[in-house]
């Protein structure tokens, strides 16, 4: 179509291939390390097929670590993309699904789904989606019109929605006394270890179309940053674009929440870093967020499962330890 090879395509390809390399490195590292000893050598041996397929190490690498690493990559990609979209739509670099309380809303939905005994897919994912849409509507209603552009209003409403969601979660947890409680707590901790390839496949099948859809709308997102009126007079159907982006993002966020609980700040850290490196053009940032967010989450999960000597810590702990200080820094800088 574009025979002249527009310069933007080059930028997209450069950024993506750089980050794909990083992601590949992270994945290899991710499947080489774990609570049992094994080295990169073992991974390559099993990659090359020189290792017995029946061996215990083969099982650990391909059936335990590999699905987990892929899940982390998908979750990281979806969450960073979610942050990127909200930042564009609200024209506020501090917006992020977790900070806005959308993750919390879908967590409520997910817990209700678990309590009703639904399976993780599609049952819990759907109740989580309902929860996230409800929170989204609440936030949009609370900070309607112009005020949503103001950082303070947005943050305050997010803090309130989050506090409310936290209270509802605690309420549901304390009302639950039987063995379902373990399921909820286990899931809330943000555990990535219990998925197999089937679940990863389902999640990939739901998320990948979303990634493409967001990429398809990446130029309108650029124009939206110039203001709704400007975007509209540049030929963007802003109602359709905004609606599609909001629903797609809520869907992505709720899908990840229903699989691995509450993981915060990924959508803040990654778009911010990538914007510093590649600039603010969303046609570059969307693919960069998919690959960069995946890389970041694989590393965070790796830290989460190798840092503690006994057992693991939830990956959400690592992302929050990195993300929250950055958030405060950004807030301070932008209110200067």
């Amino acid at each position, binding site marked *: 179509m*574009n025979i002249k090879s527009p310069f933007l395509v080059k930028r997209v390809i450069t950024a993506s291939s750089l980050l794909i390399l990083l992601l590949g490195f992270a994945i290899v590292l991710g499947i080489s390390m774990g609570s049992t000893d094994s080295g990169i050598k073992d991974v390559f041996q099993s990659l090359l097929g020189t290792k017995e397929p029946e061996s215990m190490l083969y099982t650990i690498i391909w059936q335990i670590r590999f699905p987990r690493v892929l899940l982390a990559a998908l979750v990281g990609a979806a969450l960073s993309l979610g942050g990127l979209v909200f930042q564009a739509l609200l024209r506020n*670099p501090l917006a992020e699904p977790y900070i806005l309380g959308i993750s919390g809303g879908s967590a409520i939905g997910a817990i209700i789904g678990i309590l009703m005994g639904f399976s993780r897919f599609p049952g819990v994912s759907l109740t989580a989606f309902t929860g996230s849409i409800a929170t989204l509507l609440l936030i949009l209603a609370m900070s309607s019109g112009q005020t949503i552009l103001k950082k303070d209003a947005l943050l305050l409403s997010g803090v309130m929605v989050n506090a409310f969601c936290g209270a509802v979660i605690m309420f549901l947890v304390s009302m639950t006394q039987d063995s379902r409680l373990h399921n909820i707590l286990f899931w809330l901790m943000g555990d990535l270890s219990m998925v197999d390839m089937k679940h990863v496949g389902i999640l990939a099948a739901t998320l990948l179309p979303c990634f493409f859809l967001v990429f398809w709308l990446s130029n309108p997102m650029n124009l939206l940053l110039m203001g709704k009126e400007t975007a509209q*007079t*540049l030929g963007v159907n802003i109602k359709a674009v905004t609606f599609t982006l909001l629903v797609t993002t809520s869907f992505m966020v709720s899908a990840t929440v229903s699989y691995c609980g509450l993981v915060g700040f990924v959508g803040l850290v990654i778009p911010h870093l990538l914007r510093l490196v590649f600039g603010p053009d969303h046609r570059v940032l969307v693919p960069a967020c998919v690959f960069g967010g995946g890389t970041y989450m694989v590393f965070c999960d790796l830290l989460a499962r190798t840092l503690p000597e006994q057992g693991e810590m939830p990956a959400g702990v690592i992302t929050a330890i990195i993300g929250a200080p950055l958030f405060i820094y950004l807030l301070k800088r932008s209110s200067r």
Partner: protein
Amino acid sequence: MNSAITAKNLSHSFGEDLVLRNVSFQVPKRDFFIIIGPNGSGKTTLMKIISGLLKPRNGELKILNRPIDQYHRKALARTIAFVPQMTFADFPFTVTEIVLMGRSPYLGMLGLEEENDLEIANQAIAFTGLENLAHRKLDQLSGGEQQRVFIARAICQEPDIILLDEPTASLDLAYQVRIMDLMEKLKTEKGITVVMVSHDVNLAAMYADHLLLLHNGQVMCQGLPDEVITYQNLEAAYGCTLLVDESPLGKSPRVTLVPRKYSIRE
């Protein structure tokens, strides 16, 4: 019929509030057309209706002799460019990137620009005198420079008509003149019809080919600056004492505000 914009009996209301009442006017092609009027007279609403952002409740609006609702979204964007009142975005796009966004009505969904588009953007940047700032980030520029960037983006849209909503508000004197000169150059060199909302009656009087004076959502007066800028019209519209004489530069009327202590009439 050589008119860029033809409006017949445009009316609009927000809820019960009737903000525009039977507004009719015509903007010839290659005209510098300025809409003036006090706050709340409906200037911005009228601007939004012309740009297609708002649909009028009643009335008829033709752009290049074609009803506005017959335009496809992108076709309209190729015909009319709109520079809204100062917007601020906390995202570090460069000047070139922003100007290039003006090409998107000509491009596919992903807006992949080609060499040709970059050429047009560079011309727009040169036209607005932004060459030295082309690779600077928007948030590093002054208000006047930012305004020129948005005008360059509008030029890059290669429209027949450019609409501006108070482009000189909040600019210092030197920049007010630069922006107005730029718009005049746009009209004479590129043949673009310029429609502007302005607060500054004096600037409007000096630059406009035609003026439209709005008051309470109605057209109070329209025509050549000499016909519109009279103290009767302005005092009735703005509700304050004014002195209108001829500008020392000749040709255009000059408006002077009259403080109470200098009151010339009883």
